[in-house]
């Protein structure tokens, strides 16, 4: 991004802030529905000084990290296994295509029943949603291995593990990272959703409580915070991706340009 783009971007944010400040102050929209932007930010600043908010954030983010990790490990393991067993890919395709579009929120009643308003509920939803994102990418990735390279590996009698580590994994890594990036944001959405709907402790529960208590500015402040965390999650995964794929032509080209 050039300096001029950044200036335009900052101007865009300033306009957004100005409109969100002016509209309720001029009475175009009632303050009960949209408090002025400065009030939202002030409320957010106040919330950030309370212990409850930080412990809620801790709950949300640990459910996010744990769920994402479980889903990632399961998906990579299963994807690699499907690749290694001959015929497994064709045999599992229909099942994957059927299970993948099932909305994970359909599992909310089941999660409530099995785990109640607890970490288990969040984990069930997060793992289900994030798992498919990673698995699909792993399957694309392992299918992308160059057949000639595979034959070469066989000619040189590289063992199963060496082929996996030296050939399959590096080829699949860009795909796996795309899967991780998609899964990270989906997992965050589901973590907040589980708290919001089931009532597991966390940021979502705080939003729900603020809403039922009529604390409009707090609702806006917490939603803003959720958006900021979402941006941070995106940036963090993207920078991890760049670091792990620094050797890959797609990233190397980007750095040179």
């Amino acid at each position, binding site marked *: 991004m050039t300096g001029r783009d950044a200036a335009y971007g900052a101007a865009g944010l300033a306009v957004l802030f100005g409109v969100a400040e002016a509209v309720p102050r001029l009475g175009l929209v009632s303050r009960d529905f949209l408090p002025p932007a400065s009030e939202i930010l002030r409320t957010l600043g106040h919330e950030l000084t309370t212990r409850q908010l930080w412990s809620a954030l801790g709950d949300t983010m640990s459910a996010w990290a744990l769920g994402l990790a479980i889903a990632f490990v399961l998906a990579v393991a299963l994807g690699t296994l499907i690749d290694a067993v001959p015929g497994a890919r064709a045999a599992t395709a229909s099942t994957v295509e059927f299970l993948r579009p099932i909305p994970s929120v359909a*599992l909310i009643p089941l999660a409530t029943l099995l785990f109640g308003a607890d970490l288990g509920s969040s984990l069930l939803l997060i793992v289900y949603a994030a798992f498919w994102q990673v698995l699909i990418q792993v399957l694309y990735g392992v299918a992308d291995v160059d057949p000639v390279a595979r034959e070469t590996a066989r000619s040189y009698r590289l063992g199963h593990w060496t082929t996996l580590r030296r050939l399959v994994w590096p080829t699949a890594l860009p795909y796996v990272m795309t899967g991780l990036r998609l899964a990270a944001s989906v997992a965050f959405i589901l973590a907040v959703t589980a708290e919001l709907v089931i009532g597991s402790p966390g940021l979502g529960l705080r939003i729900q409580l603020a809403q039922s208590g009529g604390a409009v500015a707090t609702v806006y402040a917490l939603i803003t915070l959720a958006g900021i965390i979402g941006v941070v999650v995106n940036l963090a995964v993207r920078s991890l991706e760049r670091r792990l794929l620094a050797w890959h032509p797609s990233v190397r080209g980007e750095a040179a340009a």
Partner: protein
Amino acid sequence: MSRAARLMLGALRVLGLPVLLVAGWWAWSVWRPSFYVPSPQRIAAVFGDVWLTARLGDDVLPSLVRLLAGYVLAALLGVALGTAIGLSGRLRAATEPALEFFRAIPPPVLVPLIMLVAGLDTAMKVLVIASGAIWPVLLNTIEGVRAVDEVLSDTARVYGLRGPARLRRLVLPAASPQIMAGLRQALSIAIILMVIAEMFASTSGIGHTVVLFQRQFQIPEMWSGIVLLGLVGFLLSLAFRALERRVLHWHWHQRETHA
């Protein structure tokens, strides 16, 4: 290999694992009957009674209508705004940080907010669905419109193609693969939001009914609802794929001839 054998093998590939899984579930539920996990046979038996009677008109159809209304609204707004923003470099630079922020907000947190503003009626649910589903459409349209091939763009200018004709003949077709990718993401978000909006505050709809069953411990009925939601998700993704194949027919065709 004979044709019959190949057909058999194909059927085995598609149906083998699903049949095995359902059989395994059934065997497990006979061996270790569980209150929370009824047998597939029992779920199939209540499925017809629960969903294919009065609830079809009272809950299933209204859910689907709201889903469709919200989705279409998001698609129209997303493509229109996205084209406008994508065509102007300055507008794009100015809106980018704000859009990144809005996209990163988990859409379900908008449910309590929109409930506050718009009440509990159908309009609220349509609004919730549209407000979450618009972002992937918008951002993908911006990207697609921005990335129109420069040679094509210059050629169009030389031939004096401008205004609405340029939009219709050049910009939108060139951006359509990316727009379709956005629409596909938006579809799964729309389904999620439909369910959540109904679970939160509603007196009808699939999401509402499933939660009701869960609270009343009608376990097989609840499972039948989960199966129904799964079927809705699956069938809509099939329908979308058919639409995509139709809309992007020329695109795949062109790629094949080039390759």
